[in-house]
């Protein structure tokens, strides 16, 4: 296996003529957590979805675990990369124990539910949970889908949003632990504390990549002012 988990070169995405992503390039090794930062509408989710293989019309070069995610069969891709969507959506009112039934690895899913402090809520339905609890449950399902984290890729869209402080810390720690175990994590997030703990940061603005590198080099006052308009 190569050291590089995700490689993107000049990736662009247009939705109905609007350029949501404009020539983004990244190279992410295993063993790291990379934050995608930037204001609303900067293209974080679009980049994450393109890397996950969810945007067939994305142009440019993408290699996720060595596969072009746009042409690789979904089942093969699903064995090497997990994707955690931003909204914890479910059409049906499952209980959390149903999640174990839906999971590809029930015992691992169970241990992630426990790690995210959801074990006591197991017999509740989704409609009886708060947004943060639902979000955590979906995260447990997504993360546990890959089994052993070594050599796997986790693409998580705003994994800490809506979570209480304790669970935010649990999720940040979980991402760092996955990287320690040899996985690559990419998280789209607005949480500056989280971003500063990541190994790499890609700062996006209006679909373009403004800066890319370790937090100390990318989150300079000048770039923060240029990107978010705050000092």
């Amino acid at each position, binding site marked *: 296996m190569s050291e590089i988990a995700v490689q993107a070169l000049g990736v662009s995405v247009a939705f109905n003529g609007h350029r949501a992503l404009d020539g983004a390039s990244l190279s992410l090794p295993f063993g790291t957590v990379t934050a995608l930062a930037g204001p609303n509408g900067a293209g974080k989710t679009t980049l994450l979805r393109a890397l996950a293989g969810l945007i067939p019309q994305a142009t440019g070069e993408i290699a996720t675990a060595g596969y072009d995610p746009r042409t690789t069969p979904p089942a093969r891709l*699903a064995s090497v990369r997990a994707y955690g969507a931003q909204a914890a*959506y479910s*059409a049906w009112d499952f*209980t959390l124990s149903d999640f174990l039934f839906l999971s590809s690895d029930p015992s691992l899913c169970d241990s992630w539910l426990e790690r995210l402090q959801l074990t006591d809520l197991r017999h509740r339905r989704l409609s009886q949970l708060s947004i943060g609890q639902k979000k955590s449950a*979906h995260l447990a399902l997504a993360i546990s889908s890959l089994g052993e984290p070594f050599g796997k890729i986790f693409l998580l869209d705003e994994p800490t949003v809506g979570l209480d402080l304790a669970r935010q810390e649990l999720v940040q720690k979980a991402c760092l632990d996955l990287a320690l175990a040899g996985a690559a994590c990419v998280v789209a997030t607005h949480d500056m504390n989280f971003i500063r703990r990541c190994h790499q940061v890609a700062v996006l603005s209006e679909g373009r990549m403004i800066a890319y590198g370790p937090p100390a080099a990318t989150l300079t006052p000048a770039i923060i002012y240029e990107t978010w308009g705050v000092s």
Partner: protein
Amino acid sequence: MNRTLLAFGSGLFGLVILIFIALSVGSAGTGWGDGGGLMLLRAPRILAALAAGLALGIGGAAQQGVFRNPLADPGLTGVFGGALFGIAILLGVSPGLAWQLPWIIPLAAFLGALLTSVLLVLISGRGNTARLLITGLGLNAFTAAGTLVIASRSNESRELLTNGAYGDWLGMATFELIWLPCLLCAFASGLLLTLGRSFDLLSFGEDSAQASGCDVNRSRRWAVLLTALAAAAATCLIGQVAFIGLLAPHLARGIIGPRHRLMMPLSGLLGGGLLLCADTIGRAAWPQSPLSAAAVMALLGAPLFIWIARRSHE
């Protein structure tokens, strides 16, 4: 797991009892007749009701799964109407041809159902209840009007088509007429069950499903095709019947939860049971001129439909 076993066990037990009751009531009096003669006469009708109910229970669950919408039902979304319209066009164009080979009527029904399904997917898009139901309403109205136009222009098929529109074809059932649609019901239902995992993954949205290894477009295409086949085969057996594709999955979900791999088979079992029950009630209560299974179904299903519509909020 115990709850699942209990649900399927008592469902099957209830169904067996129901079949015995259905075999013993009818216009020729109660009982099985000399040497089971009456039983043989009633058996095709019972088999047809079970097969159609199975296909509709599973087809309804599949349509709800693929649209991720508890109100999707082939009867309400116009797919059923399309199947009957297909039969009506065949009878209108060439009434002689229809009865020459056993597969011609099922084929016409399938083409009608498939065309309506494709239109439904193209027009209604995904996920939005209002758009889905309004599109279904339109398709339903159009196909029903088309069927009526053909029925009113054709002397020989008028009664047949009108009875079909009222879901009153079960009374005509003979083994020669029903064997192929029954097989098609079983075939479509069986294949739809294999899509259970896809529907489970689709519960969390298309992105999540695709990311979890489900080929969303492929699953959707198969679901639409097979639901159309199930609806068409059921139409050949009974005519038009609304609400059963709504009632059966809803009850199944209430009993063992929304996991499709468990819920769909139970929905099929309940669908068969409900339709047979409706038909038996119609025959037992008015032995000389039985009320159609579809009419009984609608009396039971309509209040439930309103109740679900009130409860489902997006």
